[in-house]
């Protein structure tokens, strides 16, 4: 019986050491927290719902370690475009406690459309895009978007950084 117990334990240990092989290899602080999953919607209200912001990246999906552009649609709470809002855009990796190494430039295109150039996500993982909106005479509010840039989804190696177009 001693041998039986020993062998069964041995089997359990062996199976136990096998099963976590896949589980062990999932980086956990590189994914959004459950509370942040809603942020992955590309249309978000600002914090107190004074504004709605919709974004589209160019190119789409966002590439790793290359500059990309965002097209923004900025509306008030009644879905009317806001032309003359002050827009500031930033992004960061809250799980890593760092941001981008670039400062994007925002250009108003009219009719509530804005173009944001110069963003660059240099690491894979969970990123948040912060869009601060302030319409004249209105409070400033922030819309926050979340997205996960997956290394394994990169079709091409992240190399082509000096001559993008």
């Amino acid at each position, binding site marked *: 019986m001693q041998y039986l117990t020993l*062998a069964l334990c041995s089997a359990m240990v062996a*199976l136990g050491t096998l099963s976590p092989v896949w589980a062990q*290899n999932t980086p956990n602080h590189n994914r959004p927290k459950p509370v942040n999953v809603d942020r992955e919607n590309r249309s978000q209200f600002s914090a107190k719902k004074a504004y709605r912001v919709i974004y589209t990246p160019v190119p789409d999906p966002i590439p790793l370690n290359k500059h990309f552009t965002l097209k923004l649609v900025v509306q008030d709470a009644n879905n009317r475009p806001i032309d003359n809002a002050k827009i500031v855009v930033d992004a960061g*990796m809250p799980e890593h406690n*760092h941001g981008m190494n670039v*400062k994007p430039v925002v250009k108003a295109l009219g009719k509530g459309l804005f173009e944001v150039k*110069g963003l660059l996500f240099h*690491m894979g993982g969970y990123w948040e895009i912060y869009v601060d909106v302030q319409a004249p005479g209105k409070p400033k509010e922030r819309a926050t978007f979340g997205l996960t840039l997956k290394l394994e989804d990169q079709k091409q190696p992240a190399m082509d950084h*000096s001559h*993008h177009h």
Partner: protein
Amino acid sequence: MHRLLFWIAFGLSAAACQPAQDEVRWTPQQEALIRTLSPLPSPPVDPANRYAQHPKARHLGQYLFFEPRLSGNGKFSCASCHNPALGWSDGKAQAVGLKTGTRNSPTLWNVAHQRWLFWDGRSDTLWGQALQPLESTLEMDGDRLKVAHLIGSDPALRSAYEHIFGRFPDLRDRQRFPSSGKPMPDQLQDPRHLAWSQMAPVDQHVVNQVVANVGKTLEAYQRQIVSRPAPFDTFAEGLQTQDKAKQVALSLEAQKGLRIFIGRGQCILCHTGPVMSDFEFHNIGLPKVGKGPVDMGRFDGITALRTELFTGAGPFSDVPPDHARNDKLLYLTQQENNHGEFKTPTLRNIAQTAPYMHDGRFASLEQVLAFYAAPANAPAVGRREDTLQDLKLSAEDLLQLKAFLESLSGPTLPASLTQQPPAPAP
């Protein structure tokens, strides 16, 4: 009955252990991650240097790379600190030129892939950075006027230069073009600084154009310092083509190390892509060593970059300032977070390039891995990124990671690329 149960249980145990002993099984996600690391493509083009692929520029650049006459005392060349036999580094903790510096000589393996040059990224062009070590009083202590006169006065060098760049400028008037001189903002009374600062701006421009061209030949040469396929690359190819014979290029231990590298070790977050670098900067919480001043790293690098003349957006670049190639300069920002950040080094041929870290504080890969297994959080300056976490890696994990890192070394380059050619022109 007991005996039967024993053998069933024992069999289960043995069967369960078998795959872990003989091979690592890869999930589709893991295979996709491995595909992002290999093979290494050619370096990206450099539109800011129209001579980057020029065969004669490559040759002249190789000649000059090994040429001690570029240094102040005629004893140091680029190869003194970037020795091909030492992984294009020098094997020392801190670079030793005319004096001892404060940082480790970075390897030149795959340097043409880099977005920024130096540990602090204070240069954005491979051709522009070359002048800095050449003129640094810690390193080669040469100067741009002396280099320009050397090219102009040595018939072979002058001929090689003119075959690439056209007619060499007339520098014979020593009133306008002193024999020695360079800008030395930290040593304003140095005769070389005085000589340079008394030149007419138009004459300074002529000399700067010559040394920018010298830098462009050095880049043309260094673009060929590209690592050859390593055992890891053979394995990665075998994994993709399901060729078991190629997969054995990576030992079982190294495969397990790879699994940690792309998985719970999370090394791949910064050591991304085939060069295994994100080409950017991080504060990993390295504590202060020694009594010298704190190294601000990327923060000061950005300050220096903003006054740098030889950039892709500067007057000696072969593209206009608004070229897309210069977006990295256009959108660059300096932040408090840049305090104490240093560039993520490539891991290609990493086993050749000890000591490690920006200041060479770790003599071995074991020491580096031990740091990452339980990273300190007492940075010399700034704040450590939370990218680093206590990974609780075991001693066995670390051995496996080391085996993987050692599998990233490929063959050396042919002698035709690792020594000074007999003459400046082919």
